């Protein structure tokens, strides 16, 4: 398949991919397969954020065997292990080399705007004209920090999860970690192990064991089909896209990290941080409900796995079903913390990220600054990748890129050919259509 060849001025291509992370490179692989002339623009080096914006101990939440991209997969000696951030960066850089992706590193995109029959992509080096743009710059552009953070007393040092590196870089006193995603739990855990007193502020969260019935939980999520659930099959996709990452850690011993294990190590679990009144931090009284909801969702997920095992006749070949102790919540978790009276040296915001679209000069954002898209199709010839639950539950995972880039790549080629693809162009396959709608862990 060849895209139409046109004579163009220099610096003109059919497609520009912004970002040389795993999803941008996967799209590059598919575009090359489809014969689409393109470049991949990267502000830093390949897999930049994995090298420079992760804490030292971070490992992927997915096992190595699941690290796969179109035309590339993990072939190392430890399929059940979890890559470190540096190994992940190497894995992605190897991929770029292997597929000879046309990456321009050290090229920062300054603006994307519409031009006749396509787009203009302005960078700090050159300006590109193209008919299609793929935004593959990741979902972790800007940390989301509450507005009252600006009013915190000066003696409290604040860090985002992007800035945090290791406990040794912190002051010796108490640390408040805000947020109960995988990030919040992992940071609370390692900072507590360094000897510092730690508080963890917990809102809605997703609880998961590392291993269930003898397999990695990710294996079950994939096998049962939960990771393949599509954005157009889910009852409340807006809510599903807001679900924080599951409370998992990729450790060599494959241990489970949850609020109970943190509490056993004397991490003080408090409710969602909701405000600052003078020098007093205020925590929500809804902690018990948030924990009860997470326990209910976990039981439903395990119930679904068990039902699938029975359906497949696999009960004899996997370990027996198991249920986990409910999250223990103190009878009276604290509701306030007076920073003028009780010492807190550091507050770490593990409160999530939003993509940075400040350079996007196109009317494609909603009132809250979120990109409007239909399964990754933003507009004519404009695509995005790697966002939470973009087309499937797995869209933000490394192994989730392949299905998305194949479908969106095909859509992009149709666009280049002048066909007007329907906005949600890629229809569910027959097997996807037949799968019952479900509510694994996002919906109560």
């Amino acid at each position: 398949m060849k895209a139409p060849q046109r004579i163009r001025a220099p610096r003109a291509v059919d497609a520009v991919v912004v970002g040389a992370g795993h999803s941008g490179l996967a799209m590059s692989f598919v575009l090359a397969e489809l014969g689409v002339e393109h470049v991949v623009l990267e502000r830093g080096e390949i897999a930049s954020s994995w090298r420079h914006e992760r804490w030292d101990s971070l490992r992927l939440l997915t096992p190595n065997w699941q690290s796969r991209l179109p035309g590339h997969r993990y072939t190392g000696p430890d399929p059940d292990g979890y890559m470190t951030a540096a190994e992940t960066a190497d894995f992605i850089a190897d991929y770029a080399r292997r597929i000879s992706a046309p990456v321009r590193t050290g090229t920062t995109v300054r603006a994307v705007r519409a031009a006749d029959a396509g787009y203009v992509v302005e960078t700090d080096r050159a300006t590109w004209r193209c008919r299609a743009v793929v935004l593959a710059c990741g979902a972790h552009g800007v940390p989301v920090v509450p507005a009252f953070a600006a009013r915190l007393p000066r003696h409290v040092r604040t860090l985002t999860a992007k800035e945090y590196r290791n406990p040794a870089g912190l002051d010796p006193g108490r640390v408040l970690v805000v947020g109960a995603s995988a990030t919040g739990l992992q940071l609370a855990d390692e900072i507590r192990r360094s000897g510092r007193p730690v508080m963890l502020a917990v809102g809605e969260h997703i609880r998961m064991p590392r291993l269930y019935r003898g397999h990695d939980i990710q294996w079950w999520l994939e096998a049962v089909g939960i990771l393949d659930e599509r954005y157009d099959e889910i009852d409340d996709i807006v809510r599903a896209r807001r679900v924080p990452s599951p409370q998992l850690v990729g450790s060599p011993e494959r241990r489970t990290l949850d609020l109970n294990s943190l509490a056993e190590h004397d991490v003080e679990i408090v409710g969602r941080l909701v405000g600052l009144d003078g020098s007093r931090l205020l925590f929500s009284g809804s902690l018990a409900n948030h924990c009860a909801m997470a326990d209910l969702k976990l039981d439903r997920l395990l119930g679904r796995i068990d039902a699938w095992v029975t359906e497949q006749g696999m009960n004899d070949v996997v370990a027996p079903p198991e249920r986990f102790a409910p999250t223990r919540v103190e009878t009276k978790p604290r509701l306030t913390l007076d920073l003028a009276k009780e010492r807190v040296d550091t507050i770490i915001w593990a409160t999530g990220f939003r993509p940075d679209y400040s350079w996007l000069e196109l009317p494609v954002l909603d009132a809250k600054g979120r990109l409007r898209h239909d399964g990754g199709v933003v507009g004519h010839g404009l695509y995005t990748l790697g966002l939470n639950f973009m087309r499937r539950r797995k869209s933000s995972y490394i192994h989730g890129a392949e299905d998305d880039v194949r479908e969106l790549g095909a859509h992009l080629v149709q666009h280049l050919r002048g066909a007007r693809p329907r906005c949600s162009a890629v229809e569910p396959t027959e097997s996807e259509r037949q799968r019952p709608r479900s509510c694994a862990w996002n919906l109560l």
Partner: protein
Amino acid sequence: MSVNVTAIKVDNGVNVEALLEARAALTDAPEGARFKWRATCAWVRGTHSRSTVQGFYGLGAEQSRKKTFHYDADHPEIFAAEDNGATPVEYVLVALASCLTAGIAAVAQNRNIQLRSVKATLEGSMDMQGILGIDSDVRNGFDDIKVTFYVDADATQAEIAALVAQSQRRSAVFDIITNPTNVRVDIAR
């Protein structure tokens, strides 16, 4: 005995379609979702007051009801008062109970769960040393609220637990009680 094989339609007396339509309409017109709830209050005598609830603002216009509701509040006789009505803090429990109960009915309807009975008991504990100014470390308000629901429904225990959890997640009063709110009290001139 006859066996009825047709599916029985779940009816908890909640018009979920209307609620879902309203949700869709207000998603497109967020200004219509800005509501203002109102009450007025007049002192009667001693700790007795009478509050009135009538109109509210919503869907971009002033709204009025067919009826005006009155609420007497007072304090019990052990406070040397006349006990003309529930105490204000008991109204808070009433508000929480009725909000969660309405939520359970709506969520159950939406999930096709037939309710037979929903009952709740509530208890708010309070250390009076706070409002009496005996100990400044004791807060004025409830230091703990305990709600127990008794739900009889065509559903499993886990489904009922999920109903009760979701009703808290979507409850205005639960949010008002568990999270801080700016309150401004002015004096009219």
